[in-house]
């Protein structure tokens, strides 16, 4: 494959006088749109098209496995795709830290000859509570057709504090798919371009290529403001997706208060036995109907509130006490706000909920889910450049977007999230890598001293 740097790219554009071409818009760093019917020289169009295809091609990457270095591998590909700084450091010198040279210091009496040796005794907190374990998906023996199931929760300590108590399950990642083409940031969209019209293929890609542990199917076409697909029609997609993949499924509505309960009820029916998660019951919807749909068909329900610990308690209680949802069938979504756009609220709200659960509050000791995809709403993730003139330039958004989703997710992982709903494959890979690391699943280590003396 030919190598290509950003600089060369821009030079090429210059060569074709792109800035002056009418009807050709260059959006951001790598996005080129040619408006139909624009009077542009054919050879130029061809050159530009070749270029876009080339970029699409190199940004496509299939079938990579999740092993310890998946994230880094991904990033390597991303960087080569973008043609930025390709240097692969096979030659990286492992510089050993220099031994400090013996110095002759006139030891004044103040400097002791020997260290005062003391022991560090770590403080050990006690938590009485335990987070409920919830299993999503059901295998044949359990009445479903899933080949794998996913269990979350079970913590007895703060997230990844495995030195306090074992953390039985690593948090899992679901990739969002939709039953119609949604609005997506370009950096996300380009990874799904070929499957946007086909939820079943989309689900396959999410699982096979991008390593999703589960899939979240959003039935947004049921929105009365969009296609207003009737529930019986919409749930056909549920069946298709269940056929297409063997991982557990999460089913979401459109967010429409009147329609979601009917849609989710129907979805619960067709997914009978599969132990899906219905997303979501909220206080301003008919939560009772959604809760009953989950209970009657053996599914899990997502209890979603808007950043308010007391509302979360209330809704959980309603679902547990009034509907009678079993304790192993409830997951909470306390709402995710993106980095820079309320993440402080989201983090603290979740952290408080988790601590309350660990301290024995049985209205709040349930696993948590996060709509981490919200990170793409942040301007820093998608805007081509800063709207503020005085800002230091923001740099290529292809690199800002994924890291925005990663940092949003990682922060909330530290607050106690057990299930992430995400979209960018690179962000999924990196978040998995860091969680695997914190779980102790990544064995290799590297020198913590090398940086002190490395040159470069």
């Amino acid at each position, binding site marked *: 494959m030919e190598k290509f740097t950003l600089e060369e790219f821009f030079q090429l554009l210059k060569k074709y006088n792109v800035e002056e071409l009418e009807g050709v818009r260059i959006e951001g760093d790598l996005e080129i749109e040619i408006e139909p019917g624009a009077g542009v020289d054919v050879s130029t169009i061809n050159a530009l098209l070749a270029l876009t295809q080339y970029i699409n091609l190199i940004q496509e990457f299939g079938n990579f496995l999740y092993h310890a270095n998946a*994230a880094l591998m991904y990033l390597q590909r991303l960087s080569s795709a973008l043609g930025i700084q390709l240097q692969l450091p096979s030659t990286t010198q492992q510089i050993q830290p*220099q031994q400090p040279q013996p*110095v002759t210091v006139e*030891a004044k009496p103040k400097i*002791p000859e020997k*260290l005062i040796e003391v022991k560090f005794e770590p403080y050990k907190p006690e938590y009485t509570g335990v987070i409920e374990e919830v299993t999503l998906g059901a295998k044949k023996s359990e009445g479903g057709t899933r080949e794998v199931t996913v269990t979350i929760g079970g913590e007895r300590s703060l997230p990844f504090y495995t030195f306090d108590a074992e953390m039985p399950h690593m948090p899992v990642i679901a990739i969002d798919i939709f039953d119609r083409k949604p609005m997506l940031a370009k950096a996300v969209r380009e990874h799904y371009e070929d499957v946007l019209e086909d939820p079943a293929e989309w689900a396959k890609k999410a699982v096979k290529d991008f390593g999703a542990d589960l899939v979240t199917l959003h039935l947004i076409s049921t929105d009365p403001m969009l296609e207003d697909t009737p529930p019986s029609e919409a749930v056909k997609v549920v069946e298709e997706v269940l056929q297409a993949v063997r991982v557990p499924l999460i089913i979401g509505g459109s967010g429409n208060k009147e329609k979601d309960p009917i849609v989710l009820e129907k979805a619960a029916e067709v997914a009978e036995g599969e132990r899906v998660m219905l997303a979501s019951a909220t206080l301003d919807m008919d939560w009772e109907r959604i809760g009953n749909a989950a209970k009657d068909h053996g599914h899990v329900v997502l209890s979603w509130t808007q950043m308010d610990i007391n509302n979360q308690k209330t809704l959980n209680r309603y679902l547990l006490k009034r509907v009678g949802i079993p304790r192993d069938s409830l997951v909470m979504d306390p709402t995710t706000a993106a980095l820079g756009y309320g993440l402080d609220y989201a983090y603290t709200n979740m952290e408080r909920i988790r601590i309350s659960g660990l301290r024995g509050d049985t209205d709040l000791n349930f696993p948590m889910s996060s709509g981490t995809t919200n990170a793409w709403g942040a301007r820093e993730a998608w805007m081509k450049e800063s*709207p503020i003139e005085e800002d230091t330039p*923001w740099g290529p958004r292809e690199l800002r977007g994924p890291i925005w989703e990663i940092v949003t997710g990682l922060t909330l992982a530290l607050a106690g999230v057990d299930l992430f709903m995400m979209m960018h494959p690179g962000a999924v890979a990196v978040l998995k890598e860091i969680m695997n690391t914190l779980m102790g699943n990544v064995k290799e280590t590297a020198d913590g001293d090398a940086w*002190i003396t490395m040159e470069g």
Partner: protein
Amino acid sequence: MKVKSPLEIYRYLPQTNCGECGYDTCMSFAAQIIERVVKPTDCPPLVRDAEKDEKVKKRLDELISLTSPEILEIVIGGENTVKIGGEDVLHRHELTFFNPTAFFYDVWDSLDDKEIDERCSKVVEYKKFYVGDFLTLDGIAVRCTSNNPERFKQVVKKVAGYGKPMVLISLNANCMRAALEEVAKERPLIYAATEDNWREFLQLALEFKVPVVVRSKNLDKLKSLAKTFKESGVNEIVLDPVTEPIGEGLKGTFERVIQLRRTAILGEDKDVAYPIMVTPISAWSIEADEISKAYWETVIASLFIVKYADVMIFKSLEPYSIMPTITLRYNIYTDPRTPVQVEPGLREINNPTAEDPVFLTTNFALTYYTVESDLTSGNIKGWLLVLDTEGLGVEVSVAGGQFTAGKVKDLIKDTKIEERVKHRYLVIPGLAARLQGAIEDETGWKVLVGPMDSGRIKGWLEQNWPPK
């Protein structure tokens, strides 16, 4: 802070309610100490009496130690300074975090001078607008990779010229001494005393009176180093439990950092109640390409911005590395006790005339500054009405009832906007669309529903202004 109630503090105060501190009563002053808004030394009579009377002096010292933060607070830098440590709690909702993690960026002395200047300028010039202010970077870390005292000294001097706080990095005491002879008055943080070189570094810290990092992966050793330094008269100590960049090493780092901070605060172990250093730059010693290393550096940094690092050393100066970490730091260190808000009222954007549009937004700082900067930088002339929604954003306040048509009516009246413009068109945020009718009824103005995102106002105006 050991005390939890103002009453416990009140006992130590003069109890005259003289008001010199700016508060009406000693009791309210005591409450402000608890909130860490003021310090005992902000009570002038107490300080004056302590100078004269040994007994009062003792009382003041006792109060200071009772009310000082759990984690030692340290100031790095000469003319420009950055404060680190000073934390009191493990979770921000328990009070707040106080001194944001200080970000230092790497230069090394085997670089040529031009590149050093380039990197330093990037650090000094970096800025990112966020809720009303520019976020900036704190300082420069200079590593001695030449192992040559003369070169290190020269480079450190050059870097000092940029006026930013510094961390000096070399395990070689000779190199460190050479640098300190040049810049000790800038009060750099020196890095690092280890099991091997601690005697020399102890000497340097005492002689040059600079804060020092003690470094060990073994927490017994780390604590022993800190204790030895403290007992030898060094007061400003930073702990580096060694950042290992990947795998089990990184997991171990996570554990060490948490154990240190938790044991300091809950276990009340004063020997480890010091600021913690984490070095995301370690990511650059792994085998990968530049973007991967920069990403991984950001990941390590994020982990420890959330969990307890007080000072960090970074290498990547790429905007995609800096932006997420600097934003996360701001978010985690925002005081959760007070929503960040601005004064409600009327703002004039780009010298508007009586023909220009009137916009409405809320007084949540994030909302206000986003809108204001979009208008200003888009060269849009207009009048911006800022509604008091108690510091809440548009959608939240519409949903929560702080954004109402009645309040908009009052705002129009109070700001006398009707005397400033000839038209009666109000542009409201797209997310407040449902209030369109109610605002028209209350105010008699014609209400235009603007776009969802204020970044799109410019394009929207081209289509919709002046109204037909």
